[in-house]
């Protein structure tokens, strides 16, 4: 069973019980009051009748004797006087009715029971549709004992009670119907956020993380929907991240296989030509040349790739204070053919927190790139200085520059601004990807500024260390 009907039914049940109990109690007290009133009234009437019978009978006593006829006569005259709409009375002597104006439906036995019950004892008697209050009193005249049995019609009191009950029942039905409708509305309004939440979680289950429940209410349901939104937002971020990672991996693999295929094609093709038959010496020399060059390219590629893989797996480096001038000396020493181009300005006292080998590698790659840009002045400028954000290392050239559209991509693995030129210069497209990774492991980021035909500046912030 759903929550809404459960709540509505519970409310209706409680309300029904309360209304019934309250109404019942009200009707009961109301009835009791009416009944008591009728009883008092009837008792008074009975006493009056008893008294007048006593008097009347005494007046009719003749010679100490009272004839039955006299009693009957008196009864009739009293009956006429009192009227018989509201019951009637009877005069009994020794169990015999001398006179009776009691309703026929009541019968002898009822009168007899009233007499048996005793003086002024109340007897309720039902006769057909009607209810009567019966009372009996003893009257003594001329040594004889008579009983006056009065019956008063109290059907009205009972009917009033029943009418009240029926009225109450109708009222209760109406109240329940109204209350039910109101409760249903209220409950559905209260659980509306739950419905939203259900829809949203179904959407999440189906892989759509964009739906927000956005409930404003401050109750528990509101709190639930807010934490649900927070949860989906987190999941969405995680999923986006994962999808991003997968996409980048896919791009990496496809770029990598593409990078592999070109040298493979050359190596396989030329070696196949060589092994199939004799070639003229010039072609043969060229084929061997190509095979060797492409194999070298594969070797460089695999080396760089291994290094990048290693760095990607490495989460943290142990950084040690190292004199920057020494790092730059390492770089220069590893590039003897470019050494004449280098223009290094670095305070020998500058000390940075770094992995000496990796930082030298980073600078080395930047220097190689700068040299390949064919600077107009034939120089690669390396400067290092202290700023507010730490030590800034800068590699600058006045070469051909990088097109603006390419700048955001240059640190992606295998990205080459000019593929054929990069190939001709034995570039692998991995250099800057490596540099970016090394920079990140130093808690920093490479910043490129470049203008076509003017040159490129790469900057890197490093933390200062103390020896």
């Amino acid at each position, binding site marked *: 069973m759903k929550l809404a009907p459960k709540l509505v039914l519970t409310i209706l049940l409680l309300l029904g019980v309360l209304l019934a109990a309250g109404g019942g109690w009200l009707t009961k007290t109301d009835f009791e009051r009416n009944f008591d009133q009728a009883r008092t009234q009837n008792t008074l009437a009975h006493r009056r009748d008893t008294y007048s019978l006593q008097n009347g009978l005494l007046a009719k006593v003749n010679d100490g004797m009272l004839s039955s006829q006299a009693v009957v006569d008196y009864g009739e005259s009293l009956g006429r006087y009192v009227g018989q709409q509201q019951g009637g009375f009877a005069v009994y002597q020794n169990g015999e009715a001398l006179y009776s104006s009691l309703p026929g439906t009541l019968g002898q036995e009822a009168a007899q029971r009233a007499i048996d019950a005793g003086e002024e004892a109340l007897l309720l008697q039902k006769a057909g549709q009607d209810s009567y209050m019966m009372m009996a009193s003893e009257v003594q005249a001329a040594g004889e004992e008579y009983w006056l049995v009065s019956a008063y019609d109290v059907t009205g009191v009972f009917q009033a009670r029943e009418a009240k009950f029926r009225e109450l029942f109708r009222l209760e039905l109406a109240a329940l119907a109204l209350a039910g409708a109101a409760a249903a509305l209220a409950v559905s309004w209260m659980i509306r956020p739950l419905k939203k939440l259900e829809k949203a979680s179904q959407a999440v289950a189906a892989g759509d993380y964009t739906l927000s429940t956005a409930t404003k209410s401050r109750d528990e349901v509101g709190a639930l929907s807010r934490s649900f939104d927070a949860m989906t937002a987190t999941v969405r971020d995680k999923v986006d991240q994962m999808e991003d990672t997968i996409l980048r991996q896919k791009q990496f693999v496809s770029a990598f296989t593409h990078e592999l295929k070109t040298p493979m094609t050359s190596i*396989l093709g030329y070696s196949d030509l060589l*092994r199939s*038959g*004799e070639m003229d010496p010039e072609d043969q020399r060229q084929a061997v040349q*190509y095979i060797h060059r492409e194999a070298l390219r594969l070797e460089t590629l695999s080396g760089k790739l291994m290094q990048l893989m290693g760095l990607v797996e490495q989460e943290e480096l142990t950084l040690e204070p190292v004199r920057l001038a020494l790092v730059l000396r390492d770089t220069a020493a590893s590039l003897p053919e470019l050494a004449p181009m280098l223009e290094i300005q670095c305070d020998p006292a500058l000390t940075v927190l770094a992995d000496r080998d990796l930082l030298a590698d980073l600078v080395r790659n930047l220097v190689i790139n700068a040299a390949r840009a064919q600077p107009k002045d034939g120089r690669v400028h390396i400067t290092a200085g202290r700023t507010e954000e730490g030590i800034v290392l800068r590699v600058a050239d006045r070469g051909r520059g990088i097109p603006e559209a390419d700048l955001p991509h240059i640190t992606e693995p295998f990205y080459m601004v*000019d593929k*054929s030129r990069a190939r001709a210069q034995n570039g692998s497209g991995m250099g800057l990807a490596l540099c970016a990774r090394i920079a990140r492991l130093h808690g920093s980021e490479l910043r490129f500024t470049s203008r076509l035909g003017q040159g490129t500046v790469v900057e890197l912030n490093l933390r200062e260390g103390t020896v």
Partner: protein
Amino acid sequence: MKPILIVDDEAAIAQLIAMTLARMGYTCQMAFDGLKAAELLEKNEYDLVLLDIMLPGADGYELIDFIRPTGIPVIFISAKTTVADRVKGLHLGACDYIVKPFAPEELLARVENVLRLSGRGQALLKAGDVTVDVATRQVKKAGQEVALTPTEYHLLLVLLHNKNIALYRDTLYERVWGRDAELDTRTLDIHIHRLRKKLGWQHMIRTIPRVGYRLEETS
């Protein structure tokens, strides 16, 4: 015959294709970027364009739009191997799609196919008075049909594809009998012997000591 244009930014691969095709007597021209290729296409006429997709300047997809109106058949040669890439290439109007890395033999076969189907290349391979109709697999000597077994026919094709080149025995054997066949150069010798006999090529197929065989045609 008009030359074949090879467009690839990798000089090594362009050269490889040129060398392979040159053996069959095709003349080739090379372009290393899209713009240079467009320039050559403006100036000269070609029988076929072998087109790389990823090119500096203008890429292969742009170039094929440029080539299509001229009616010159195009074969894409690309490292892009996915079905989607290949279908896209063919949809753009390429006659064929060769995936890198490729075997020289495959390149040759596809080039010949496209040339033959477009009515531009030789429908017949010739050597001396022997002609081979590749489409019907008919071999004729001086107009008379010669019956060859499939293996003999295959061997003849390899020889015709490498005219005047001394072919190494083991490579020749591998080409005809497949890479998985156990090397048995006696079988090769027997088939060469049969070919010589059937085609009257006792002198055309020369045995080169310690190398293998060469189909010689002095034209």
